[in-house]
């Protein structure tokens, strides 16, 4: 039983790094763009997090969903540890459609 629990937690921890957080559901642009980079700034707003990623100057918005604590944790870890995140964004509204840790080196 203990061995099975160990395998389960190991599997879950592997899965956590690949978790994709869903943000804005509606897209206004014809095409989304993918941003990759370390999180440099986070502005904690009332209904969203405004995030500066990599070489991109804009603050991109991620809504405060039910997973807001996990999202904030991911953002802060990226800022602190320097790993990259990957965000699919709408270039017209600056809203983030999906957000995840970028595991590619």
């Amino acid at each position, binding site marked *: 039983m203990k061995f099975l629990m160990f395998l389960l937690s190991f599997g879950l921890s592997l899965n956590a790094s690949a978790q994709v957080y869903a943000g804005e559901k509606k897209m206004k642009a014809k095409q989304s763009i993918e941003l990759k980079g370390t999180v440099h700034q986070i502005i904690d707003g009332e209904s969203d997090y405004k995030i500066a990623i990599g070489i991109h*100057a804009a603050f991109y918005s991620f809504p405060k969903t039910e997973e807001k604590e996990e999202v904030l944790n991911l953002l802060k870890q990226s800022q602190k540890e320097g790993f990259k995140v990957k965000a699919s964004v709408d270039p017209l509204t600056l809203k983030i459609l999906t957000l995840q840790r970028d595991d590619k080196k």
Partner: protein
Amino acid sequence: MIRFLLVFLFALAGTQVLPNGFGNKRGVVDVTVLSEAKAQRLFDTFVSHKEIPFNYPLDGCFARATAMARIAEDEKIEMGKIFAEGVLRTKTNIKELPEVMWSYHVAPTLWVQKEGKPVLMVFDPSMFDKPVTVAEWTDAMKLPGTPAAVVSEVYYGSRYQLGPRKAEDTKNSWQRPDLEITEETLHVYRNADLVGFLRSLQGQQLQKPGQSQQQSKKAGTR
């Protein structure tokens, strides 16, 4: 020997240095000195390049700055880059988008002879219609609002730097991946039709219930 010295002095007179905020062996970047007339002509040349989306101020400054520096380089003009970081808020020249907010901003920079002295000027057609001083450039990014705008630091780099120094190492030549990202970014933002999108939003906001968009356009609204 005299001829060599003259060439050397002439070359020296044509450039001035900037402190390199990214760090390199010399600690400085050589940047060309231009006359005011040549500087304005260079600025106008940048504006004439329609492949650079100056009307998409939301993001992509790194790509615009790189594109401009390469245009200048083709004319044997060595530009530097100026970076400002913080929470930057500025007006735009797009009626439907009065202001934008950035975590950093970058533009190419040159020395310009003004009344016999070289003055560092910033070339930023996304914000101005002529080269401006560093103070004018940074002051324009302190528009009041929430969160409060703050320029936390300003520094310089060579034309080869793409993004802010927290995002990259010192570069002494053009890097192929950077040029590829630049081209891709210019392409995406060129095709984004931001103004068209903003006008369509305005049209939706002005539309009365039960009225079609065409009817509200006829009524003189956008």
